[in-house]
C-alpha cells in the first residue's frame, strides 16, 4: 500500500465514526431528569374558567398527553391540526399547558382553530413550565396512569413521531420502569 492511501483510510475511519455518531441519536436529547419520575405536581386555573383548576390529580388513572403551547409559537400552530386529529380519534386524553401567554388571545386561538384539549392550564408566568423543565413551546409529555412521565418530545408533534415514540410506549403497556 502506498503512503498516499493513508489519507483515504483516515477519512474513511472518520466517516464511519460520524455515521455511528448520527445513529447514536440526538445529543440535544439531554437525558431529561423528568423521565421515569412522577410528573411534577401542579395545580393551575384552567384557561377557559379561572375558577376551576386542573393539575396532576386531574390526569391520574389513564395515559395522558401534556402539551405545552402558546399563541406566539408558530410551531404550535403547525402541530395543532395533528392534535385535533388525535382528539377526534379519542386516542388519548390531551391536556394543554398554555404557557406565558395572554388568556384572551389563547381563548381566541382555540375558538378559531379548534380545541383538542380536555382542558388547558393557564401558566401565565411560566412557573409550572419551569417545574416541568420546559425549554420552549411546543413540548409534549407522555404521562402514564401512575402519573410518571415516560416520554418528552421537543418541537411539533406529528404522525411519525406519535407512532414511533408515543404509541409504541403506550402499547408496550404497563407502568414505566
Amino acid at each position, binding site marked *: 500500500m*502506498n503512503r*498516499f492511501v493513508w489519507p*483515504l483510510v483516515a477519512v474513511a475511519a472518520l*466517516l464511519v465514526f460520524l*455515521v455511528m455518531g*448520527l445513529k*447514536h441519536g440526538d445529543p440535544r436529547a439531554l437525558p431529561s431528569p423528568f423521565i421515569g419520575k412522577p410528573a411534577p405536581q401542579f395545580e393551575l386555573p384552567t384557561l377557559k374558567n379561572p375558577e376551576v383548576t386542573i393539575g396532576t390529580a386531574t390526569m391520574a388513572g389513564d395515559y395522558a398527553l401534556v402539551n405545552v403551547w402558546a399563541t406566539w409559537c*408558530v*410551531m404550535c400552530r403547525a402541530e395543532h391540526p395533528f392534535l385535533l386529529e388525535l382528539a377526534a380519534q379519542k386516542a388519548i386524553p390531551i391536556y394543554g399547558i398554555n404557557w406565558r401567554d395572554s388568556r384572551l388571545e389563547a381563548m381566541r386561538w382555540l375558538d378559531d382553530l379548534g380545541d383538542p384539549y380536555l382542558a388547558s392550564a393557564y401558566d401565565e408566568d411560566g412557573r409550572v413550565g419551569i417545574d416541568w423543565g420546559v425549554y420552549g413551546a411546543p413540548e409534549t409529555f407522555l404521562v402514564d396512569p401512575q402519573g410518571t412521565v415516560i416520554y418528552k418530545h421537543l418541537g411539533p408533534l406529528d404522525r411519525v413521531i406519535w407512532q414511533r415514540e408515543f404509541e409504541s410506549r403506550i402499547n408496550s403497556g404497563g407502568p414505566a420502569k
Partner: protein
Amino acid sequence: MIPEIGQFALILALALAVCQTVLPLVGAHRGNTAMMGVGRTAATGHFVFVAIAFACLTYAFLTDDFSVLYVANHSQLALPTLYKVSAVWGAHEGSLLLWILVLAAWTIAVAYFNADLPDAYSARVIGVLGFLSVGFLLFALLTSNPFDRLIPAAADGGDLNPLLQDPGLAIHPPLLYIGYVGFSVAFAFAIAAMISGDLDQKWARWTRPWTTVAWLFLTLGIALGSWWAYYELGWGGWWFWDAVENASFMPWLIGTALIHSLAVTEKRGLFKSWTLLLAISAFSLSLLGTFLVRSGIIVSVHAFATDPTRGFFILTFLAVVVIGALVLYAWRAPSLDSDAGFGLLSRETFLLLNNVLLVVAAALVLIGTLAPLVVEMMTGGKISIGPPWFNIAFLVPTLPLIVLLGMGMHTAWRTQKTASWWRLLRIPAIVSLVLGVVIPLFIYGRISVLLVVGCSAAAWIVISSLIQPVRSLLREKGTAGIPRSALGMSVAHLGMGLFVIGVTVVSAFGIESDQALQPGESIEVGGFEFHMVGLSNVRGPNFSAIEAEIEIRRDGEFVDTIRPQKRQYLVQKSWMTEAGIRAGLDKDLFVALGDQLGQNAWSVRVQYKPLIRFIWLGALVMALGGLIAISDRRYRRSGRESEARTRAAEAAA
C-alpha cells in the same frame, strides 16, 4: 405564486447544474470542444436561476408572506427591514440557499476570469464545481426546501432569533460562506489537475489568487463572528472554542497552510502531492463544518435547527466528494516526484514547518471538537472540552509557528547563507526580546514568563514583517520596488503580529468583575469609576428593554456615558444582553447587565479590555495583506502569457 417561481427556478438550476457537470467533463475526456463549451453557458444559467430563487425568498420575507413556512418561522411583521433581509439566511434552509448562490457565483467568476486557461482544464474545473452544486441543490430540494408552504398561513411570524438581530451578524454569514465555498475552487482546480494527470506547477499558479480571495473572506468572516460574540453574547470574550467556531477555524488553518504550500509548489515545484492534499482538505473541512453544524451531531450555541435526515444526506455527500477526491489522489500522487532539493536553512524548510504546525493545530481543533462525541459514544457520558484545554493545546503548535514565521520571511529559496541571515535577524531578535520585557513591565506594570514570550513573539513578527517594506521605503522612496505579493505577505504577517499583541495583552491584563449595582452607586474597575446614574424603560421596534445609564469617570474626570440594555424580544420572549461598550484602540470598557437582584439593583459585569481591538484589527490587516497579494501584476496577466514568460524565464535561467 412567487414562492412557487422560486421553487421552480431552483429545480431548473439543478437541471442546469447537471448539464454543467456532465457535458464539460465528458467533453474534456473526449476532447470535444463543443461539449466543453457548454460548461460556461450552463454555469451562467445555473447562477441566474439560483439568483431568481434567492430573490423570490427575499421577496417573501420583505412582503411578510407567512404562508411560507420558513418565513413564518423566522420573521415577523415588526422585524426591521434590514433583518428581514438577513433573516433570509438566518436559519438552515435559507442559509443553504445562500451557500448555493455563493457557489454558483464563484463558478461563474472562475468561468469568466479564467477564460484563457486551457479549454479542457477549465471545462473540468467547471464540471467539478457543477458536481458540488448538484449535491447542494439536491440537499436543498430533498431535505430543506425553503419554499415549503404553511397552510393555513400564520397571522404573524415566529420572529428571527433575537441573537441574530444585529448588523454584524447580518453580514457575517455571507462573508463566511464566500470564504468556505471559495475553497471549493481550489478543490476543483486540484481535482481537474488530477483528472487530467497534468500536475506540474501550472495548476498551483492558477489556484493561488482564488485561494487567497477565499482565505481573506474567511478571515473577515471569522473576525466578524468573533467581534459579534464579544459584544452580543454579553460575555465579553472573543473566542469560545465552540463547535461552530471551530468548524470555521479548521478550514482557515488548513487554507492558511494551503496558501503557503501553493507558494512552494508554484515557485519551486516542490510539495506537489502535499499541496493537492491540502486543497482537498480545506474544502473537505468546510463540508465537515457544514455537517457538524447542520446535522445536530454536536451541541453548540449556534447550531441550526437540526434533523438526522439532513445529517445523513450531508454525510453521504461528504463521503462521495472526499472519498472520490482521495481515491483520485491515491492514484495520481505517487507519480509526482520532484528532483529539486533544498538546503536545511532555506525558505522551503520554514514553509514545510509552517505547514506541519498549521496542520497539527487544525488536528488539535478537530480532536477537541469531536472528543465529546467520542466520549459519549464510548461511555454514554456527556463531557465538554472547553477553552482551558484548547487554550493550552493550541499554544503548542502556534508559539513555534510565530517564532519561525519571522525567520522564514527572510530566508532565501533553495539555500540561505547562515552568516548573512544571522546578520539581518540578530538586531530584530534582540529588539523583540527587549520589547517583550519592556512592554509588560513599563506600560502595564507586571511581568511573567508567558507575557514575555507573548510580547516578544508579537514584537518579533511585527518587526520582521516591517523589515522589507521599511528598507525598500528608505532605499527607493516607495513600496513600488517590492512585488505586491511580497508586500501582501508582509502586511498579512504584520496583521498576525497585531493579533498576537492583542491576544497576549487582553488575556494578561484584562479585568472582569461581576458586582451588584444600583442607581446612585459606583464601582471601580481597572482605575475607572463606573457610576450608575439611573435605569429606564425603552422600547424598540420588536423588543422592550431596561436601559442603564452608566457614567465612566477617571480620577473624577468624565470619560463617557454608556447605556447597556437588557432586552426582551416580544415574540420569542427571550432576553438578550446588549452590552454598553466604550471602545478605543488602547482599551475597551465594557458593561453588561446581568440579572435583576432586587427592586432596582442589577448584577453587572464590568470589563476592562486593553488592546482587544488589536485582535480584530489584526485580522483586518491580514485580510488586507491577502488583497494586496492578489493585486500582484502577474495574476493580471493572462494564463497563457504568463506561462510563456515563465518558460522564457526558465530557459534563460
